[in-house]
């Protein structure tokens, strides 16, 4: 179990307890906690509706693969801290990660 923090628009952070041994993607965890992300492609790195911004801990994450980068390229507001949450598998190294849900602002 690790902790991942979600920052909302007013800067408030809430902690999520995230299992690292169940094979869920971060997108699936966010859905399980009933965050309002669409994830219409179900985690295929196609729809970009699971877009997040990494506020702290970018260095803890593995690099994006080509599929993820291709899809991020189609977003007008992606930047160097953008990731697709469906492409991230929580691991022990990610403890303390701080993210913001960007897809919500795109809607």
């Amino acid at each position, binding site marked *: 179990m690790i902790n991942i923090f979600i920052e909302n628009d007013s800067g408030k952070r809430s902690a999520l307890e995230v299992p690292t041994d169940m094979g869920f993607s971060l997108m699936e965890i966010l859905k399980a906690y009933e965050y309002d992300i669409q994830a*219409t492609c179900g985690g295929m790195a196609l729809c970009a*509706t699971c877009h997040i911004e990494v506020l702290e801990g970018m260095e803890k994450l593995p690099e994006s693969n080509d599929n993820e*980068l291709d899809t991020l*390229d*189609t977003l*007008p*507001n992606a930047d160097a801290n953008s990731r697709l949450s469906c492409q991230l598998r929580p691991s022990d190294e990610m403890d303390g990660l701080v993210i913001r849900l960007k897809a919500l602002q795109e809607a």
Partner: protein
Amino acid sequence: MIHTDICIIGAGPVGLFAVFEAGLLKMRCHLIDALPVVGGQLAEIYPQKPIYDIPGAPAIIAEDLVDNLMKQIGEFRPGFTLGERVEALEKQEDGSYIVRTNEGTGVHCQVVVIAAGLGSFEPRKPAVEQLEYFEGKGVHYMVRKPEQFRNRKVVLAGGGDSALDWTIFLADIAERVTLVHRGDTFRGAPDSAEKVYDLAGKGKIDLILQAQVNKLGGNGVLKEVSILGNDKSVTVVPTDDFIPLFGLSPKLGPIADWNLGVEKSAVVVDTFDYSTNIERIYAIGDINTYPGKLKLILCGFHEAAIMMQSAFKYVYPDQKLSFKYTTVNGVNPF
């Protein structure tokens, strides 16, 4: 004015198959879609992916499923209005409807079927100062007629395939083409990326990497774009046309304002016949919701079959419908 029995909003797989189910009951259809092509999510999001859960087709590429659906409904000669978004429904005194699009097209029909999926696909807009002000005055989200850019100064933004493809295409037509991209590499089709670097190397286009357009300027019409580099440098480029190409994303749009029951961006229907809370309006496929709803193509097909049986009474009020298999009568074109 176009006259038909059934107007279908959305030409995704479910809207397309609904034409077949209507045709078996001798009801004519007209489809309207905001996308310039048919196929909905299959065409826009995953044309090359295989689908495994279409009965009778162990694996089928999304694009091929759309082609097959078009073949299957061809005999029923549906009408299409593509590239226009449905904005309004106008109820007539006799209960029929006129469906209106943003381009002023009107479709008069007895029954409206909303097969709008996740909503209409709209361009993703970048955060650029004055962007909306210059829409129609130099800002375009699609290239419809490349000739309109002849001898003009065009700035494109984006890093995907369409930004690359249009940069290459317009390089021969426009006076000057500038492509602005946030990153420093392109992962679109390797050929296209290669061509763009080559054109830039030869001085035929301007390529500005690691930068974003952040401001538009002009006096009534677009005159220049301001480009902010990741290193905080600012470049101002004289521009007649700015074309941001960041793909499309679905938005529920006007459907939300039609007084239908809407829950979590989906239209509530009665599972008896997939009717909405308004008579003569049905909703099928990803756009509807009911207890146990599954957003699958197969479920949308089932809903289309049931819904058309119910719609029959509005198109043929004097006839009684008796259910028959296609194997009994075959498929009778009109």
